[in-house]
């Protein structure tokens, strides 16, 4: 059985209260909640997850459709897909342009590390560069070639946008893409293995 809760045009905490009521009325089933602002979307999602439900969010023309699944133990197809994707190679998080504290040695080690990555048995799925790590993905980096090679092999390369901004390097990016904190968090938390260098 499927219910629809239309909470469009309503302010917090009304959509949450309506979702609460609807969830209390069913043993198990899917409830679709319609909201039209980000705060309500986040609040209904929090509430439903807190109640142990699975939530899927779709957006169409400024309206968010939250499909709240109560009681079923089966996994929604896209959730399964995501968890399988996470079984890909590890995500590597690089937060410095060197490995360890000693300047010169550290830079050599980092160069060696990135150049050797292509030979890893379990090839990384993503490289995330943050803080001074972004010096490795911009013009003048000693590992641009190696990184472009990895990209060619299907490894996704992301540099933190805030960090590029901070160092004034945004137009100097030479490999991969710019990413934000949301995607970084998704990438890290969705990974089955994160290696921090």
């Amino acid at each position, binding site marked *: 059985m499927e219910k629809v809760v239309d909470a469009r045009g309503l302010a*917090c*905490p009304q959509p*949450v209260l309506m979702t609460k009521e609807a969830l209390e009325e069913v043993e198990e089933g899917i409830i679709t909640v319609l909201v039209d602002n*980000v*705060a309500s979307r986040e*609040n209904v999602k*929090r509430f439903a997850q*807190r109640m142990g439900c699975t939530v899927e969010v779709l957006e169409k023309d400024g309206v968010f459709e939250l499909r709240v699944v109560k009681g079923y133990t089966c996994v929604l197809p896209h959730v399964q897909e995501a968890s399988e994707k996470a079984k890909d190679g590890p995500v590597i998080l690089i937060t410095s342009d060197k490995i360890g504290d000693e300047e010169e040695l550290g830079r050599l080690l980092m160069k060696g590390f990135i150049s050797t990555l292509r030979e890893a048995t379990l090839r990384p799925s993503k490289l995330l560069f943050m803080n001074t790590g972004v010096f490795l993905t911009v013009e003048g980096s000693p590992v641009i070639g190696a990184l472009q090679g990895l990209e060619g092999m299907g490894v996704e390369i992301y540099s933190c946008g805030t960090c590029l901004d901070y160092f004034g390097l945004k137009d100097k990016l030479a490999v991969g893409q710019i990413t934000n*904190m949301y995607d970084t968090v998704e990438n890290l938390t969705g990974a089955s293995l994160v290696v921090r260098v």
Partner: protein
Amino acid sequence: MRSLDIPQDPHLLVGLATGDDAGVYKISEDLALIQTIDFITPVVDDPFLFGQIAAANALSDVYAMGGEPLMAMNVVCFPTCKLEMEVLEKILAGGLGKVKETGALLVGGHSVDDLELKYGLAVTGAIHPQEVVTNAGARPGDLLFLTKPLGLGIVATAIKGGLASPAVAEEAGSAMASLNREASRQMRKRGVHACTDVTGFGLVGHGLEMAKASGVTLEIELERLPIIEGVLEYSSMGLIPAMAYENQESFRSYVDYVRDPGELEILLYDPQTSGGLLIALPSDKAQGFPWPCIGRVVKGDGRFRVV
């Protein structure tokens, strides 16, 4: 306001420029006037308590500048066809009680008929021109204090939804109704460098105003943040005011998380009604200051760091 041409004047010690809490006008060498107004929609069900909270909230701007209130006027929007006049009487009684507590005088007010209830005060305060406390004086090395617990906006949302427990509602209510007077007096005795009151933009928003105005970065220790007990229960249930998300959206790019804030993150952005003072004290005079130390001021360029 940015598009408007606001006149400047040598007597105006604090104006709009730094997003401070009130305007300050120098009358003479030893007297300046503080002018502020604030009015709000109800955050609790009890009208008397709401009156106290709205008044404490309005008076707080004077205390944040380091001054003392002299006179106040009621500002009232009241739906006469929806609510009994008795409700208004209780609100005004609550407000008057707070004004009296400060030693200031209630000298009048103005009311209009409106669809939604709103109440607050316009307040005039006094201060010595040399002792005005703004949000612009924080220096690296200062310690930061917060004088009321966070989570007041979330509790207000839970109250609105009828889901707040009486104990939590009471704790939040009494925090909101309490004056920032004592904190203001204590900080002045200790040579405060900067102060602001934490209201609608949350700890991050008002903290960033201080950081930017002072040309520093604020470093906040998550574990030291005072929060209303039980508030995380409500935030996990999605009882979070929309403005918390708006604040998060506006300020997130100025916040650096050195550690994962987890479920505490939203509290940093939670809009506070009648929130506490955020105070930067020189570290050598901060010993024994009777409110929680939540972090420190470091060198930087107007950012908010969470450690």
